[in-house]
């Protein structure tokens, strides 16, 4: 069969107006459906004709999936809330500025207007072999094309690779993991709540998926507890272009201080592994230490221990090390980077 990478395939379009209806639909078509949020990831898959679902379930007509509200001192963000709304919301900006900064660095203004927070965390990896339709492990084949002697893998993983070396492309995901967010999932069986940290899966767990979302399940909202509200945050994203680009590496940190020393910290790095990489051992190591260059240095060095580079991504090691250093060092987040 000849391959052509243009024109949306024909599908049956459903536009439910309630979460219950949406859940019923994904349950009914569980073997062959595609959930459409903002469409920024979906349209690539569909228009490239790499995915040809029988039915597409568009969540954009469900009002209860949109909006940000206060909940138990924290906030709850509907999965279909546009990234622009997340960036602008006063509660997000006041208490969880980390997420606002991360969301503001996603792609471009147009994409942030259309793209949703739920879509941003649930999007698939951008490995150019996989997205180009190469039949790799992640696509169900038995090779990783990005990890061969001739592979061009400048954007690929330096940590936790397991056959597949693709990375998580999300900017909001590291921020949400740092903030100990919880993902609320709905299915015909009811609701389950998963820690953001465990929402994302690496290839060792499931090489064909990026999240724990099961067939028949929909991500309906993201809860951010009060735990880290008002902590000192740092987010930085390094990318090739100033707009409309995925991270080469991004970093999110939330740090609390007591008596001039680090009292607690969450430190997460994106685009270095298939899931946002939480640096739990570094977090533990810096507790009780002053926020100074020595602590930052130590954190940076610890962060990249065990990194394994590919032919073209060696720079990611010093980049991750220096971004972790900066995340500990603090200061004005380099939002324009």
């Amino acid at each position, binding site marked *: 069969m000849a391959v052509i990478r243009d024109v949306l395939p*024909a599908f049956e379009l459903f536009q439910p107006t309630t979460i219950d209806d949406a859940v019923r639909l994904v349950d009914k078509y569980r073997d062959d459906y595609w959930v459409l949020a903002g469409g920024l990831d979906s349209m690539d898959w569909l228009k490239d004709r790499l995915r040809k679902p029988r039915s597409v379930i568009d969540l954009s007509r469900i009002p209860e999936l949109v909006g940000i509200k206060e909940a138990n001192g924290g906030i709850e963000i509907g999965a279909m809330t546009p990234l622009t709304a997340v960036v602008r919301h006063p509660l997000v900006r006041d208490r969880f500025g980390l997420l606002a900064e991360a969301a503001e660095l996603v792609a471009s203004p147009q994409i942030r207007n259309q793209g949703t927070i739920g879509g941003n965390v649930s999007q698939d990896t951008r490995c150019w072999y996989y997205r180009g339709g190469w039949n790799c492990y992640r696509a169900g084949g038995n090779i990783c094309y990005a990890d061969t002697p001739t592979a061009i893998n400048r954007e690929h993983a330096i940590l936790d690779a397991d056959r597949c070396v693709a990375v998580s492309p999300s900017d909001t995901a590291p921020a949400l993991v740092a903030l100990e967010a919880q993902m609320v999932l709905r299915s015909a069986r009811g609701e389950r709540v998963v820690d953001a940290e465990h929402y994302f899966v690496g290839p060792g767990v499931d090489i064909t998926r990026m999240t724990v979302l099961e067939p028949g399940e929909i991500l309906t909202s993201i809860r951010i507890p009060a735990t880290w509200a008002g902590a000192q945050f740092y987010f930085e994203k390094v990318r090739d*272009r100033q*707009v409309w680009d995925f991270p080469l590496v991004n970093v999110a940190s939330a740090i609390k201080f007591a008596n001039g020393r680090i009292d607690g910290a969450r430190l997460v790095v994106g685009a270095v592994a298939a899931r946002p990489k939480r640096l739990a051992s570094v977090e533990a190591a810096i507790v009780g230490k002053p926020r100074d260059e020595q602590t930052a240095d130590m954190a940076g060095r610890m962060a990249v221990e065990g990194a394994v580079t590919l032919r073209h991504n*060696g*720079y990611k090691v010093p980049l991750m090390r220096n971004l972790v250093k900066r995340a500990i060092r603090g200061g004005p987040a380099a939002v324009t980077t």
Partner: protein
Amino acid sequence: MANKLIGQNYATPDIVAKVTGQAKYAEDFRADGMLFCKLLLSPLPHGRVKRIDASKALAMPGVKGILTADDLPAPADVVTDLGQRIAANTKGEKALSNEPVYQGEPVLAVAAIDELTAVEAIEKIEIDWEPLPFVVDPLVSLRPGGPNARLEGNVWGKPKPPAQGQPPSPPAIEELKWTAADFAEYDQGRLPMGKTPDEWSYGDVDAGFKNAALVLDETFVTPNTSHQTLEPRTAMAYWQNGKLFIHCSTQSVVQTVGSMSRWLHLDQKDIVLISEYTGGGFGSKATGTVTAVIPALLSKKLNAPVMMRIDAETEYSIGGARPGMHGRLKVGFGKNGRITALDMFVINENGPYEAQGDTGMAGRIVSLLYQPEAMRWRGVSVLTNTPPRRAQSQPGGMQGIVLTEPILTKAARKLGIDQVAIHRINAPEGKAKFGPVNPRGQRAYATSAFVKESLDRGAEMFRWHERKAQGGKRQGSKVRGYGVATSAFVSGSTGYDGLFVIKPDGRMYIQSGIGNLGTESMTDSHRVSAEMLDIPWEKVELTWGHTGRNLPWSCVSGGSQTTHAHTRAAHAAAKDAIAKLQEIAAHTYGGNAAAYKVANERVSGPGGSMTLAQAAQKAIELGGKYDGHELPQNINPFTKGSATALAGQGLMAVARDTYPRDGATHSFVSAFAEVEVDVETGKYHILDYVAVADVGTVIHPHSLGGQVLGRSMLGIGHAIGQHWVYDQHYGLPLAKRFHQNKPPTILDAPQKMAWDAVNIPDPETPVGARGIGEPPVAAGCCAVLNALADAVGDDVFRRAPVMVGTLLAALEAGKPIQEPLTAHI
């Protein structure tokens, strides 16, 4: 010349349509019963179609037909203006191929009632493929035993001399391999320099090196870059009464008729080409694109209009690209920075089809721009199984300058010379010579060059001398750098026609055969005629973009020719009009024609005065040459046809540009950049950019500024991120989308940008204006590269683009880390 229009800003006649969305591009047209076609692209970098089974596709409801390579007319011979026949290149690019030589090459097209049906039909087509050898890296192909991109070899050979009285032979593909010894220094990142088919030199190169105070020998690699036009090369065609009507995306209008006629074996008079608006070309649509014949042929076969919309991935494949160049330059400098000798060796990645002239142009432009006292040039263009290369803004010159500039500023640092000073001491001036000695024992020379003036103006605007001392000083994790670069390119042709009619309504109707590719030269250059006749611009009607509307023979809208060529043609036509008006006045009022003057929309003299409207009426009454019933002998037949159709409507001005020109027209740009590098991340920003053009007389400041800064951005894209990516084992591209091959975004533009022009008329053209499209490209690219080196030091990067990882890895290791010579990483 008076100065009411020339050098003044104005609203171009296409601008309202463009900003309001009313402008219609090829894709916006519809015709009754129109079908859509889609292309089946080769999945292989090189393969042969053994069998096509389209039976399931053709059986689908709504599928109307298929076009394969077997349906194409054979390549036609070219007949030059002088009547010389040049045999067709049978190995050149065609619209469809049964032996595709790159992944993405169109194999067949299917037409259906809509695109979805066409696409679903294509997916039902079965093709038996015979995979063939391939290569996507020119150096891999040059290695002993390396694969060839074409079955016949990997380089274009020189055509054999024709037998007496016979047409010149078509070029042939040959095989070129270098020895293992040639590759001895490959692993050290030094470009192998084996045998090349082409070479020239002038002066005593050995003595130049011997007398040099400093000799640098450096390898640098420039990127392959897609043209990334906003409008893909979409085309829609239908036939009416034996004539082909085609809406297509092309840089040129009149000149594209010629290529369509050649590709389709059609008489030019049977082609009506409509292209009022084109969304960019940058060289890739100079005279249209060969794939535009697909809807034309399908339309003929199916007897229905056919639209072929090109999607982004197909545009990546068929749109073409600038060839990347591997270069190694040995340059000798005197203590004062003067280049005593320059030995240039370049390998061009040609793609699979027509030979690109970038290698030779690289040598000639470097020789012009830096005026080395002695120079040798060697070059080879190697075929690869990657998309076709086409000219891209400043073709070859750009790459040559990018190979040279880092060496020039490195020498400045080593010799303790200011960057402006080293550019100044090597800058061309006046009728500067360039290139090799020709068979007549002479070297070519420029018409004029005012590079020093542009450097001085730029330094003043940028406050270079105050700011440069901050270069390399670190503050926190940030370090700033300052860079200067100069650039040059050809900028004008001659010999085209001007055509306009002044009608009895007193208005001036100008016919423009120039393409509207966004540069505005299709309107700007005609302002010369209005200026000379002293007619307010409001009374000018411009017709362009439709060959059914009687356009004159015009130059290709490419290679920065148009402003030069058509201000000359407009000047010639205006002179013709003035002479005719004077004669009409003298005929009416008596006296000597020369005593009558044309001004204020009147022709007036000792015997009396009449309006141009009255003169137009008189011209019709007089007939003959005055209203176009008699035409000059020396105009092009194309113009003759158009003028004949317009005859009798008023006073016709029609003339060919026969003005003399001593020298080859070139334009120049000097550019200045400030960058700030974060040494902890490798990320950098361009803070400030100034470019000053030496383009002769300024015709239209707004469009000139748009070109100077816009084309600078094109070059900056080469410096900061635009590139191609191939997996060499599979021969397949990985970065086919904008977010992967990374053309610069608006936020990557320098935070501050400014431009100016020295505005000194070129002495070899009546209006003094030269073209601008090309030289800002290398200036933008190299000002940024030189600023980066100023910030982080030499020996950090040795290829462009310089991306985050390149800088950070090198700064970490204290030496360049990025693979120096592998293509497409």
